[in-house]
């Protein structure tokens, strides 16, 4: 590209009169003009000082128009070239288009008008192409930054979740797979004064906003859960705080909060609009359904609480609906029944989660559009 702001056009023709006429016409339109008498001279001039566009005759001694295009394109140069041709050379002109010419014009009595239109058209096309290329480059760069950002967010989010959960005389296993690096699911577990607190939650949606709410929600639940031991009070307080955060976004959180009391061998459960959790004890498995609304809609909502015996050998499996709503190619959901059938086999937590994930993955061919979270705990 020429260095000046003015567009420079190189006019190439062995006929000095044609060169001058076309040069004058284009100069009148405000272009800077360079001239060459054949292809060889044109290439030398363009190499010494690149122009923005070349208007070239087809028939010239030594290096003709076709050869000029071929040599220029061979270097990877994309400078637009408009070919001027006589009636008898149409076939050659079309060959020139195939070789990379931008346009061709008949050298007739209208050439003064047609050359101006053609130059404008070709330059506009080139401008659009350059603009398009720039936009694509910008987009690719932005995408790359976004991806890097997501990878960072993924690491941060992973650190928010508890790792290496160990509760003496219990076996615990967890699984967490966001749909796109970051997600709106979370789980948490901690023990205080002989009581193991368990939480699994699913923030609606699975976008960046869900991930933000997930972090806030987990923080609130853990903070309240560490100073309060009554599940109803914990969830009610968390709901009030989260309603303030979510206002009219329509977003919400479904959640299960459980407390296993070691001494009483009891499990207290509160499910706020969450999919069923599965409790196995005494050789049977039962689904425990939601006991109230989801969190984040109404600060005055409240929930019922249920208490179950949780002696040695009892197991609790909690999950988010990314598992059950995984679909096969016929749009059928993996569903709760398939899940319950696996749970009834009575496998230990780690193996149970592996089996469920493998079955769901096979069912939906690995296409999980939602976040997946599983939490299994069993008392030895």
């Amino acid at each position, binding site marked *: 590209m020429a260095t000046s702001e003015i567009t420079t056009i190189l006019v190439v023709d062995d006929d000095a009169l044609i060169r001058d006429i076309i040069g004058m016409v284009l100069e009148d339109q405000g272009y800077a003009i360079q001239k060459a008498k054949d292809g060889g001279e044109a290439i030398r001039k363009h190499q010494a000082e690149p122009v923005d566009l070349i208007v070239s005759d087809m028939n010239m001694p030594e290096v003709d128009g076709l050869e000029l295009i071929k040599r220029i394109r061979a270097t990877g140069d994309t400078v637009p070239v408009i070919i001027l041709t006589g009636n008898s050379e149409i076939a050659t002109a079309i060959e020139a288009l195939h070789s990379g010419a931008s346009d061709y014009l008949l050298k007739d009595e209208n050439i003064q008008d047609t050359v101006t239109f053609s130059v404008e058209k070709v330059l506009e096309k080139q401008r659009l192409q350059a603009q398009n290329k720039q936009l694509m480059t910008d987009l690719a760069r932005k995408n790359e930054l976004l991806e890097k950002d997501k990878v960072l967010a993924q690491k941060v989010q992973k650190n928010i979740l508890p790792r290496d959960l160990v509760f003496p005389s219990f076996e615990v296993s967890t699984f967490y797979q966001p749909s796109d690096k970051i997600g709106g699911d979370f789980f948490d577990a901690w023990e205080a004064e002989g009581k193991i607190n368990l939480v699994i939650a699913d923030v609606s949606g699975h976008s960046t906003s869900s991930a933000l709410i997930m972090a806030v929600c987990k923080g609130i639940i853990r903070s309240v859960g560490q100073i309060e031991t009554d599940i109803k009070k914990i969830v009610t307080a968390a709901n009030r705080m989260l309603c303030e955060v979510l206002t009219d976004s329509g977003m919400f959180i*479904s959640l299960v909060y459980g407390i296993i009391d070691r001494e009483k061998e009891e499990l207290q459960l509160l499910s706020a*609009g969450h999919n069923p959790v599965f409790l196995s004890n005494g050789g049977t498995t039962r689904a425990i359904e939601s006991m109230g609304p989801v969190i984040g809609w109404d600060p005055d909502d409240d929930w019922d609480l249920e208490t179950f015996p949780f002696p040695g050998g009892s197991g609790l499996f909690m999950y988010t609906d990314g598992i059950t709503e995984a679909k096969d190619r016929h749009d059928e959901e993996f569903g709760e029944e398939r899940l319950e059938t696996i749970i009834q086999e009575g496998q230990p937590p780690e193996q149970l989660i592996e089996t469920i994930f493998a079955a769901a993955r096979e069912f939906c061919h690995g296409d999980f559009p939602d976040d997946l979270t599983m939490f299994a705990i069993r008392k030895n």
Partner: protein
Amino acid sequence: MEINLGSMDGDVVVVDLNGDLVAGSAEELKRQVAKLLQKNFNRIMIEMANVGFMDSSGLGACMALHKLVVEHKGRIVFVKPNETVAKVFRVTRADKKLALVMSKNDGHQLLIEKTK
């Protein structure tokens, strides 16, 4: 998802949904209803019979619409969700917060009565 607008007596706007109510379509539905409210149409019937599946974003959109319409002193009913969708409303207890009806006539009655 296809969203078609129709009308019934008493300035009731029927928003007929056809397809899955999920993230993208949920946003579009919110936009459409917000536009209706701007034009002072605040008796809204969401026809759900042809919604095959609704995810959490879809449910969130229903709740957001409900809040928005109530803020505009209007009324919104959700008509004839299929069993899959109804279950989502039930599990989350949204059925206790939204007006869910099983026919357009019931929905129409509710909208007219409530806004008399």
